[in-house]
């Protein structure tokens, strides 16, 4: 019980911290959204500027405490403001069109990377120094390489030289976005290269952790007992050793799902993929503070949700956490 209260307290404080950091971002940074709009549209009159000031609520009237209160009440009513670079689109609609792209691509890539990496980790841990263990340094090398460098080389080879996959954007420009065959196949073709680069560079982490826990688990008495009973190797490996060794990986996986929204920022910039990361990048280059703030909130929310998910999974998967308060 004490454990649950402590975790709930953590979520409350973390959410408050995220919201507050978000509040201070535009106040610490130089310039305001209206100034950013003025730079794009210098013909605006003073009256129009005044109207925009009110529209964006950046007149900075009242004390900081007052502004903070107004910010919180806006937030709770679900109003995230209006994008200055894509005016008059609301931030909510900008998020609505970009989040699905990131969620689908990075989410799928994270799942594939987790499954493949964990499986390879089980095999590598089962036979230390064996065939699969030899793969580990190669994957680690890929992980230690700057991601964008690998991605650019991949675009050069697979897209520009061999014309196998497109290396730019999320779909063929001019396609009608919707549930039709042409669009879906185009989106799939565009997703292969980004997804493959993410999988290849992120697998080593899952593999290494699984391998190391697996090796420790194999030394346990119950694994030896299972072997002594004459169970098949596969059964001992998966049902006895891997099943117990997978806990840390599952906790990591839940967190990784949370970072999916923030995750492949560099990937989206390299591939000009129409997701959250690319939108954030554009918002930063165009001083679009409302969109920046909205994306930060979305990312923080996703991560906190994933933490909650990790907690729940842990309590279900590991009975010890239910009796022991220590985390």
């Amino acid at each position, binding site marked *: 019980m004490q454990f649950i209260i*402590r975790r709930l*307290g*953590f979520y409350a*404080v*973390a959410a408050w*911290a*995220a919201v507050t*950091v978000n509040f201070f*971002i535009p106040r*610490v*940074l*130089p310039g305001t959204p209206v100034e950013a709009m003025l730079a794009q549209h210098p013909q605006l009159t003073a009256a129009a500027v005044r109207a925009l000031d009110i529209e964006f609520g950046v007149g900075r009237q009242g004390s900081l405490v007052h502004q903070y209160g107004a910010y919180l009440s806006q937030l709770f009513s679900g109003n995230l403001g209006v994008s200055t670079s894509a005016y008059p689109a609301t931030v909510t609609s900008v998020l609505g069109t970009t989040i699905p792209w990131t969620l689908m691509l990075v989410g799928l890539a994270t799942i594939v990377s987790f499954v493949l990496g964990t499986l390879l980790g089980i095999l590598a841990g*089962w*036979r*230390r*120094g*064996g065939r699969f*263990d030899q793969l580990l340094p190669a994957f*680690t*090398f890929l*992980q*230690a*390489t*700057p*991601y*964008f*460098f690998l991605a*650019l*080389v991949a*675009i*050069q080879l697979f897209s*520009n030289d061999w014309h196998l996959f497109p290396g730019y954007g999320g779909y063929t420009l001019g396609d009608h976005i919707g549930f039709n065959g042409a669009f879906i196949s185009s989106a799939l073709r565009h997703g292969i290269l980004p997804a493959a680069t993410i999988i290849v560079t992120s697998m080593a982490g899952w593999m290494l952790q699984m391998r*190391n826990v697996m*090796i*420790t688990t*194999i*030394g346990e008495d119950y*694994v*030896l007992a299972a*072997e002594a009973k004459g169970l098949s190797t596969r059964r*001992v490996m998966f049902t006895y050793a891997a099943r117990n060794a997978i806990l840390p990986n599952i906790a990591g996986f839940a967190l990784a799902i*949370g*970072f999916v929204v*923030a995750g492949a*920022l*560099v990937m989206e*910039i390299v591939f000009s993929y129409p997701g959250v*990361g690319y939108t*954030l*990048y554009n918002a*930063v*280059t165009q001083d679009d503070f409302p969109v*920046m703030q909205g*994306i*930060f909130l979305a*990312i*923080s929310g996703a*991560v*906190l949700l994933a*933490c909650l998910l990790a907690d729940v999974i842990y309590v279900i998967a590991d009975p010890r956490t239910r009796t022991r308060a220590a985390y």
Partner: protein
Amino acid sequence: MAVAVSLPPSPAVVPRRGQFLRAMPAKAKVGGAILAVFVLIAIIGPAIAPFDPSATNPLATAPAPPTLHHLLGTTSTGGDVLSQLLVGLRSSVLLGVLTASIATLLSMATGLTAGFLGGVADEGLSLLMNVFIVLPALPLLIVLLGYLPHSGDLPTAIVLSALGWSWGARVIRAQTLTLRGRDYIAAARETGERTWRIVVFEILPNEVSLIAANFVGTFLYAILTSVALAFIGVANFSTWNLGTILFWAQNGNAFNIGAWWWYVPPGVAAALLGMSLVLLNFGLDELGNPRLRDSSGRRKRHQRAWRPTDPTPVERRGPAT
């Protein structure tokens, strides 16, 4: 290891100075050797660079492939790639060392305090660590470094370590929690040692490999993040480092026109530097947990096939204690 002399019998066996190097796993030796080369280049690189890295050749129209004069070719403006690399490595390595040092000090201070004191201090510091873990680092870095005025490596290192210390703090806290319950700590307490003395001389030496691994991990994070930030365009482009070289290569269309000598050397240098750090971390892991050691070399000596459930072979050196 100098403090080991004053230690009471502790659970970790501390080898003597000469043995320590020999006991290092092979992976750590290889990683350390590569890293040493990079550190050497970081120190003497600018002195042995054949050209001024920022020098341009007004006659140059396109990047030129390697010649005897320019060993790694030139950029599209006639700059010498080798010189840029030699000069740029210093900044990258320095940033890594600075970030790793600041972040490790932060995680040591918070992790040890939280783990050893427990109670309210632990609750508060753990909360702080968890909040920093869930903050999205890269987007926040882009916004912070993109707008705040910054000129050198130190401000960048401070921002990087402010967002990168929390994971290590959690690991150190967890380890301190398990060490706190050991008998020798209780004995030290009974003899009336002061809290800071117990933490610094009894607990800290037993966490050296953990802290070192944390340092190396943060080093890698700093290198990869700073290179990624430079690529995105968030960096000081009047200086040379691995990230800015790659940024200019990408801007100069090096990838499209096939000027491999422009983008492959900095990319491979970053990968090698990263790899050396990962190898070093593998080695440190194996030092702390002998089970993880690769036993392929040892297997051949056994008559029957080695089975995964066999006990871990332990090699004894010198008289058994």
